[in-house]
């Protein structure tokens, strides 16, 4: 990247610098949060082997390290994608309207409603099930039928706005949404939005979900359905944020996500799907955390590695199939309860890092989330954080503005190496599915969690307001509480919904789901999603469709699993 003259000069200057710092008689090198050793200064010498055209390149050109697009924020800012959802569907609608009024924007005049379900909805449990007691509408919306979708989405143009369904077992709620949309005159090719397809990423969090191989089949079924029926739908969200929240540092977040993406893509390819089609619907939800430069470099390396994987492993030819679709969800575990207003500042730095990384969508947690779910005020404040960044700081003028920094390019290159190393380690452990089943990945995460807290407790890692500059009288923050009547109303509604339907028709459609799952078990795709939609149209609830899936697809581990230490 540099000529001989520059490198000779750099060597001389480095020697002078070495002499200048020798007098301190101390080692000033440090480590990033992922443990990569870092010197106090970087020069052309550190990146002399990096080749500009092939290793760095231009925004919008393979390997897309600098940006997916030739023009980025100058042409199209990132999508504001705040997660919202609580109480009954009409309560969530109020929050959707508040965010809309506050200026939430998506692409080209549309908006992205990033809707989160409550725990029961996340796992396919209806509110009239005793299993749901205590959890209805508390940390997300209780929305379980096409009628609930109507209460939440009525009046919204589903062909212009992205509807994002943050929901664990994915297919039943997605089917319910499609039933609602089709009942209201939309055709499938008009619909746009995202499903999580977390039937497999729930492997990371020690959740209770589909057993590994069946999970991959269900995820692949969703993808099969989307690329054949809903071309504009983003079917899969590889949840780096959860991996980060459960203990991964930056390099493991990236490495585990890439390995997850490979496992999904392998499954799609084995199902006979075209990589140029299925790769365009895979997105990555990326946590941007405290080590400012490390996360930026991770992001740049991640875009490049994914493009290389798409081209080299899967033979993708379309640029869109090589693009790393990114939704930033800035770090939550690094926000703390002590002096909670400090979290606003932390998140603003995380968001700045994400914008400098060239993210394409952003969600920022609210400062009061260590106390409860966000109030309207704190939710709008997360949007304001994005808007100030976008409109007041000038960072959008230039794409990938940190490129060419000796440190940033050196660290990006290191992140690439670390990413490749993790992919290889997982392959050596027998591949992603086996590594997951053997607990190899979870072990890394557990260790990461324990280490982080050990470092906080020992003071090695400083958290302002918690282990340093702590005060006795933290300003108390009032916790947001959804309406206490939510659980009763949600349960009554679903009972009433079931009482009004043609039960024989519902039962037959639910049986159709079971039959379709038996085909899926044998590796026959293309039956389960259509059967789920038919069931939703026959007024089966999302919870009932989930139960039908579970008659065939293995659910695991058992909820009453007991671990002894």
């Amino acid at each position, binding site marked *: 990247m540099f000529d001989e003259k520059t490198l000779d000069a750099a060597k001389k200057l480095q020697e002078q610098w070495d002499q200048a710092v020798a007098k301190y008689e101390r080692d000033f090198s440090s480590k990033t949060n992922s443990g990569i050793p870092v010197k106090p200064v970087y020069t052309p010498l550190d990146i002399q082997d990096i080749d500009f055209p092939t290793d760095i390149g231009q925004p919008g050109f393979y390997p897309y390290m600098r940006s997916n697009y030739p023009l980025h924020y100058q042409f199209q800012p990132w999508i504001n994608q705040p997660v919202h959802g609580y109480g009954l569907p009409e309560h969530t609608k109020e929050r959707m309207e508040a965010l809309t009024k506050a200026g939430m924007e998506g692409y080209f005049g549309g908006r992205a409603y990033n809707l989160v379900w409550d*725990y*029961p909805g*996340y*796992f396919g*449990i209806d509110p009239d099930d*005793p*299993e749901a*007691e*205590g*959890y209805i509408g*508390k*940390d997300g919306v209780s929305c379980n039928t096409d009628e609930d979708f109507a209460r939440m989405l009525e009046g919204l143009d589903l062909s212009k706005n992205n509807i994002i369904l943050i929901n664990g077992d994915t297919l039943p709620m997605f089917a319910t949404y499609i039933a609602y949309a089709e009942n209201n005159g939309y055709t499938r090719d008009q619909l746009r939005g995202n499903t999580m397809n977390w039937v497999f990423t729930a492997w990371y*969090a*020690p*959740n*209770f979900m589909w057993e590994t191989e069946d999970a991959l089949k269900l995820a692949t079924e969703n993808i099969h359905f989307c690329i054949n029926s809903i071309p504009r739908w983003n079917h899969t969200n590889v949840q780096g944020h959860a991996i980060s*929240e*459960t*203990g991964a540092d930056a390099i493991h977040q990236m490495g585990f996500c890439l390995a997850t993406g490979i496992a999904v893509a392998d499954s799609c390819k084995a199902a006979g799907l075209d990589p140029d089609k299925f790769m365009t619907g895979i997105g990555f939800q990326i946590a941007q955390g405290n080590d400012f430069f490390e996360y930026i470099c991770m992001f740049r390396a991640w875009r490049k590695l994914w493009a290389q994987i798409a081209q080299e492993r899967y033979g993708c030819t379309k640029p869109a199939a090589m693009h790393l679709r990114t939704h930033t969800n800035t770090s939550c*575990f690094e926000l*703390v*309860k*002590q002096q909670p207003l400090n979290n606003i500042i932390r998140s603003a730095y995380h968001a700045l890092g994400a914008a400098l990384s060239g993210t394409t969508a952003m969600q920022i947690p609210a400062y009061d989330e*260590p*106390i*409860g779910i966000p109030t309207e005020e704190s939710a709008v404040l997360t949007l304001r954080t994005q808007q100030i960044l976008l409109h007041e700081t000038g960072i959008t003028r230039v794409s990938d503005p940190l490129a060419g920094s000796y440190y940033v390019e050196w660290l990006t290159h290191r992140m690439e190496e670390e990413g490749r190393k993790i992919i290889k380690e997982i392959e050596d452990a027998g591949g992603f599915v086996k590594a997951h089943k053997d607990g190899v990945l979870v072990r890394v995460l*557990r260790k990461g*969690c*324990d280490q982080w*807290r050990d470092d906080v*407790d020992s003071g090695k890692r400083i958290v302002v307001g*918690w282990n340093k500059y702590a005060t006795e009288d933290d300003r*108390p923050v*009032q*916790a947001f*509480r959804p309406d206490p009547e939510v659980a009763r109303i949600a349960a009554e509604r679903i009972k009433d919904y079931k009482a009004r339907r043609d039960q024989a028709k519902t039962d037959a459609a639910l049986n159709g789901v079971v039959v379709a799952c038996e085909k899926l078990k044998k590796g026959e795709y293309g039956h389960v999603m259509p059967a789920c939609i038919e069931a939703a149209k026959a007024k089966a609830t999302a919870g009932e469709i989930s139960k039908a899936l579970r008659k065939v697809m293995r659910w695991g581990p058992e*909820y*009453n*699993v*007991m*671990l*002894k*230490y």
Partner: protein
Amino acid sequence: MSSNGKPRVLLVKHWIDIHDRGLRLIASRCKDAGFEVVYASYSQPDEIVKMAIQEDVDVIGISFFTSAYEQHLPRLMKGLKENKLDNIMVVMGGVIPDEDHEMLKKQGVRAIYGAGSDVNGFIELVKSEVKK
């Protein structure tokens, strides 16, 4: 108390209450402190009582990400009382607003360790209250 004199701690969380980073940390620290730990998920609060009997525990640590304790805790405390297990120390953790602490303590919760709590405080509490 186990036969070898180690405190026995049951750590539980409802199976759909998936934010378990804190409770896993407690499990790890309990292990480091030499306690015997049973980490389990439950579906209905009565199951916690059954596990407490079966595992002969001294302490139950229960964690909530949402205010599901409003429904679950009374059922747990009632079950313990009915089975004459009032001697088991119940502690709570998770995302628990300060204004709820008094109400929970009135129901018999010995201590509450929410976000950012001192984990060693919990370890010391167990050591001092579970007598040999």
